[in-house]
């Protein structure tokens, strides 16, 4: 189960639409208790892929180290990564799977014709295959 607070959700959608038709990317920060993850904050980072960014994203090692440090200093956990699939459903590709890390949640936002369409989250299982993770949006009080 992956809870997402409204503010980080809005920020991910904004990033995905802003970067369309390129892929956006960033980090998910939050807490994990009793196998329930809650995304409290996101960190937007540049897509470091050189050239065409419409079908690929790369996060630089320096941005990764900054995210780990930020999580440590703010008593948060680095829970995963989000990226967008412009004009494509939020289903991980083989390229996503091969590059995926254990433990991390991988949120994918589908953006169709410059408008946010849907969001899904995935995690690797022990067989290195993606399994969908149920998302619950936490509404603001």
């Amino acid at each position, binding site marked *: 189960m992956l809870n997402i607070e409204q503010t980080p959700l809005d920020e991910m959608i904004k990033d995905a639409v802003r970067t369309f038709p390129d892929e956006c990317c960033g980090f998910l920060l939050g807490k994990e208790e009793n196998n329930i993850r809650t995304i409290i904050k996101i960190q937007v980072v540049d897509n470091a892929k050189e050239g065409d960014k419409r079908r690929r994203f*790369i996060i630089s090692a320096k941005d990764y180290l900054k995210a780990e440090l930020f999580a440590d200093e703010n008593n948060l956990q680095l829970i995963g990564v989000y990226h967008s699939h412009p004009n494509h459903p939020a289903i991980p590709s083989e*390229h996503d799977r091969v590059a995926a890390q254990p433990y991390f949640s991988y949120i994918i936002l589908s953006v169709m014709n410059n408008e946010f369409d849907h969001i899904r989250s995935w995690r690797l299982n022990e067989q290195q295959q993606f399994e969908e993770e149920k998302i619950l949006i936490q509404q603001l009080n």
Partner: protein
Amino acid sequence: MATVIIPTPLRKFTNNTAKLNIQATNVQDVVNDLSFNFPELKRHLLDDNGKIRSFVNVFVGDDDIRDLQNEHTSLKDDSVISIVPAIAGGSL
């Protein structure tokens, strides 16, 4: 002893330990020590030929070991080694 920082996704293979102190004179010593003490971590660090996986970056301080002497990069007692998973993907 050198300090090794384990990235979040790999901490489940190091008993949730984020920082380890390892007696090492070069990066290969660190890799050997981690592989010996944490066998589950090994398959995420090394490929079938025993080389550091292409999806794993190793930094000594602020420098990628690929810009130094790779596994032969020398370490000091106060060296900080960061294991950094490559984060990438895409829709096709």
